[in-house]
């Protein structure tokens, strides 16, 4: 079957099987930032924005994105870079494997929550696991990023 959707701002048509997962389709389309880290639907590494909402692409049938809009890290380079600088400044980047999913969810949070406090930030990001570089540095980076975003508005 064929699925047509919008990927990172461009229309895409792809041939899929009934049980092709969005995760696999996105990698076929060259979006290698999207990775599968756990196989148990809870690590957050495969996070993409589906119609603007952070979602686990490992659990979404590709057929279900017909006519919808998907953004991966590849399509949000400017925002990702901006937040990436905060991460680097706090020394909060180590192996980088989980970063794409983590960054996607931080960007989703920055869009969704207006003035999140630390508790709200932690709760929003609790579905992103495996942060080997340590949580404190990442939290400092997120806090500063959110603050800067707010001041820019």
């Amino acid at each position, binding site marked *: 079957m064929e699925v047509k959707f919008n990927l990172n701002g461009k229309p895409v048509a792809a041939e899929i099987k*009934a*049980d092709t997962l969005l995760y696999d389709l996105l990698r076929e389309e060259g979006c290698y930032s999207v990775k599968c880290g756990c196989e148990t639907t*809870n690590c957050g590494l495969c996070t993409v924005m589906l119609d603007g909402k952070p*979602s686990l692409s490992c*659990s*979404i*049938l590709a057929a279900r994105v*017909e006519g919808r809009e998907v953004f991966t890290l590849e399509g949000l380079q400017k925002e990702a870079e901006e937040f990436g600088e905060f991460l680097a400044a706090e020394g909060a980047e180590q192996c980088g494997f989980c970063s794409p999913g983590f960054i996607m969810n931080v960007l989703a949070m920055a869009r969704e929550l207006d003035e999140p406090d630390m508790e709200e930030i932690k709760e929003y990001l609790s579905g992103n696991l495996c942060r080997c570089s340590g949580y404190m540095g990442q939290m400092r980076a997120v806090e500063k990023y959110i603050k800067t975003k707010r001041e820019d508005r």
Partner: protein
Amino acid sequence: MITINNYVKVSSLQEAYELNQKRTNRVLGGMMWLRLGAGRVQTAIDLSGLGLDYIEEDEEEFRIGAMCTLRELELHEGLARYFDGAVKESVRHIVGVQFRNGATVGGSIFGRFGFSDVLTCFLAMDAYVELFRGGIIPLKEFIQMKRDNDILVSIHVKKDQRKVVYMSERAAATDFPLVACAVAIKGEKIFCSVGARPMKAILLEDVCPKKEEAGDFARKSAKAVPFGSNMRAGEAYRRQIAGVLIRRGIEKIMEG
């Protein structure tokens, strides 16, 4: 992992119902757990084109469409206001925001999962399921029914003035609950729902105790609930924790 041969996005509940009569076909919820199961699905039935992702509120009740996500439950202001945040509390510990943007209320309820926070929460409320063929049935009856081939359309929750508190005990944030508990009080009546036993939630209905008797009542209630052991917790531990959660729930409601 599950394999699916055909995918059909149905255009009516009738179509979904007819397809679902074949045993090898399956209705999709959010596919969070379904994907992890083994087995072959001949035709996956997708209800997402039927507009079932609503939460409607009127003077008498809330009507929550089966395809409404757990995240939508969590963020709904009307539910938060009426149930004093109990519904939000029941879902906010489930995995993460991304997961809750996918998982559906219908999937949680129809699955009657042993670990379900959502089922535990609604069970303490005056809740009903609306089935395409079976009509409107109290949730407490639905959970006793054998899994059949009907289609879950929505959940109705009556605004019957009951006060509800939801609590769960988890070994780690975002993990499955070791014990889940919802306590509701309406006038002289108390409703205690206990889930993650690790079997599906059970409902106890009783006469509401006085505040100073809450501890005794809670211990007695927890004793009446069958618990089991699994890798997360033992039977005795679960019973102990359940007693504490029930007591706390009663006290919290009575203290207002």
